[in-house]
């Protein structure tokens, strides 16, 4: 087990190196000369050279790459080009709102999707199953953008049930005041595919021999479903959720932009708009790291809850 973890962690090194190379090639080689943007209107050869020296652009490409590697290893990405704030400060302040929104969305999504998926899988091919499947298909056919636009207009602007957009300093206030509407819109998008996906797990488990055996020995349907099927069907659910956790970090990009939630997704969009490369670079590297770590954790938890799994 320990050897496995060590091996996996060592495997992360070339991948992280690759991510750094990708980001570097993308922004430093193809990204064009940022000093022209930074110098602004008062463009003189002197100020241009000054900015170049500050950013290390006067050095060779390999030397610049080394600077970037050093930045990644020390997790110090310098300052934002547009606001001059340290990148770590920006990310630190942005990660909370993102996690609050996506985290609560994930919890509610699971609480709704899993029981519903289990129910429709149990009554497979019945009326409930058909209604839910049709609802899911219809819900999935509408673009996420339409939900957000229509939801904000009718639920918030017309009916006044929710605030149109905004964010406050208090996490609790956010959770019960600002989060519900974006969360509802996010759920409209995510519930359809999730229910169908989890349903397939339950259907697969229900077809297994152990279910027939459990029924044959006279267990009630309740026990069969809750004790035997649920626990087995949750194994793939847990792995899927674990793998999706890094995505929580960048938050719901469109939701955050649309409801002006100061999260990571919002920061990414803003940074792309302002060509603020340090922020995009930093977020990309952080998310890549998180993805690798969570993939490893997913495999470990998989092993933990399902001892049949062999880690290779």
């Amino acid at each position, binding site marked *: 087990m320990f050897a496995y973890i060590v091996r996996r962690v060592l495997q992360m090194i*070339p*991948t992280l190196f*690759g*991510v750094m*190379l*990708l*980001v570097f090639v*993308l*922004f430093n080689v*193809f*990204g*064009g000369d940022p000093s022209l943007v930074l110098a602004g209107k008062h463009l003189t050869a002197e100020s241009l050279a000054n900015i170049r020296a500050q950013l290390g652009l006067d050095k060779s490409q390999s030397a610049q790459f080394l600077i970037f590697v050093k930045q990644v290893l020390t997790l110090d990405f310098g300052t934002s080009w547009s606001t001059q704030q340290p990148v770590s400060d920006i990310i630190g302040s942005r990660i909370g709102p993102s996690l609050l929104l996506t985290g609560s969305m994930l919890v509610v999504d699971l609480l709704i999707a899993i029981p519903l998926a289990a129910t429709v899988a149990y009554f497979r091919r019945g009326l409930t199953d058909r209604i839910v499947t049709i609802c899911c*298909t219809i819900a*999935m*056919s*509408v*673009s*996420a*953008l*339409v939900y957000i*636009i*229509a939801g*904000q*207009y009718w639920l918030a*602007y017309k009916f006044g049930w929710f605030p149109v957009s905004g964010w406050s300093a208090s996490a609790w206030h956010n959770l019960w005041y600002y989060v519900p509407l974006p969360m509802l819109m996010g759920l409209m998008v995510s519930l359809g595919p999730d229910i169908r996906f989890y349903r397939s797990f339950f259907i697969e488990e229900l077809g297994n021999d152990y279910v027939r055996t459990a029924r044959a020995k006279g267990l009630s349907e309740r026990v069969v479903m809750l004790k035997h099927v649920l626990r087995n069907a949750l194994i793939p659910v847990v792995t899927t959720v674990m793998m999706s956790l*890094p*995505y929580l970090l*960048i938050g719901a*990009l*469109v939701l955050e*932009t649309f409801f002006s939630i100061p999260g990571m997704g919002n920061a*990414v*969009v803003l*940074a*792309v*708009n302002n*060509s603020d*490369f340090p922020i*995009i670079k930093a*977020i*990309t590297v952080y*998310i*890549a790291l998180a*993805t*690798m770590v969570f993939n490893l954790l997913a495999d470990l938890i998989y092993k933990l809850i399902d001892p049949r799994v062999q880690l290779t």
Partner: protein
Amino acid sequence: MTSTVQAAPAMTGTPEVHRGFWALGWRRLKRDKVAMISLVVVGAFLALAVAGWFNIIGDGWRKEVAIPYAAPSWLMQSAEETLPPAEEDTTSAKSSAPIVTMTQAEDPIGKEVALARQNMGKYASVETPLRETLPFGADLRGRDVIVKTIKGTSTSVFVGIFGALFTLLLGTVLGAISGYFGGKVDDFLNWFYSVFTSVPDMLLLLSFAAVAGRGIKTIIIVMALTSWTGTYRLVRAEYLKLKNREFVQAASAIGASDARRIFVHILPNISHLLLVQFSLLTVSLIKYEAILSFLGFGVGVTQVSLGSMLAEAPAELVQGVWWQMVAVTIAMSLLVTAFSLLIDGLRDAFDPKANK
């Protein structure tokens, strides 16, 4: 196991006409009513899109044909009923006589005025009166929503189809090389794959978009560079499985080159998977394009797509103008649903073993 599969057609020995794989799949697909209807809808969308690319229809989407935010005609109570009738203009006849202060000879620019009067007819622009209503309303600049939606759908489908095509090409070539050759090449491409998968799609798309700017060609390239990973994994696994089959060994025995074995012998055997993958990619890229354009990183300002039309919707809704959003929603939902149902049908028809 493999030998029985290979030998099966010979052993049955029926004198029937031998049907090809695609013919059999097509026959199964024809039995699937839902899939056939979806095929017709998708076909209609494709025809519309192709017509849009060649500017056969939807070309005049920029034309201002109605008043700003003209309402759909079936909705509008005609303006005469709601507005008080305009007063008869009786004074105009009296005031219409020109006020002459000096003769042409006295006027210093008299000659030029006379010349201008002469040529007036030549340069006068033919002003068509702006319409009060349109079949499905108009947008802020009085452009016909139906024409605009057609053009926007055409752009979105263009991005989806060509993005999927390039993605498929990249993923298939890399996957085939990786799975077929194995070894060092496989390791290297796998490393490449793990790098691209460790960054979420949307973040990667935005990073590429930040560097590459905007425009239809850019989005297509960016999408191909970011979404090839799924196809790569699929194709690689298939090549790993197929490269040791007898038919490939037979091909190598008669001296077929590696390239020939990869593209002529193995590739046709996974073509049905690629067709499904292509459809899946098209749908997801159409959705991505909408989000990118909505965020302002998609098509340029002179172009229109479903996403850029949706981006106009919030400002319109506040003024009670909902028809553009509804038109886009209908077009997009129809397209996405038909495509998804078609994919299910294709899967059932061409991959019957996958059925449970």
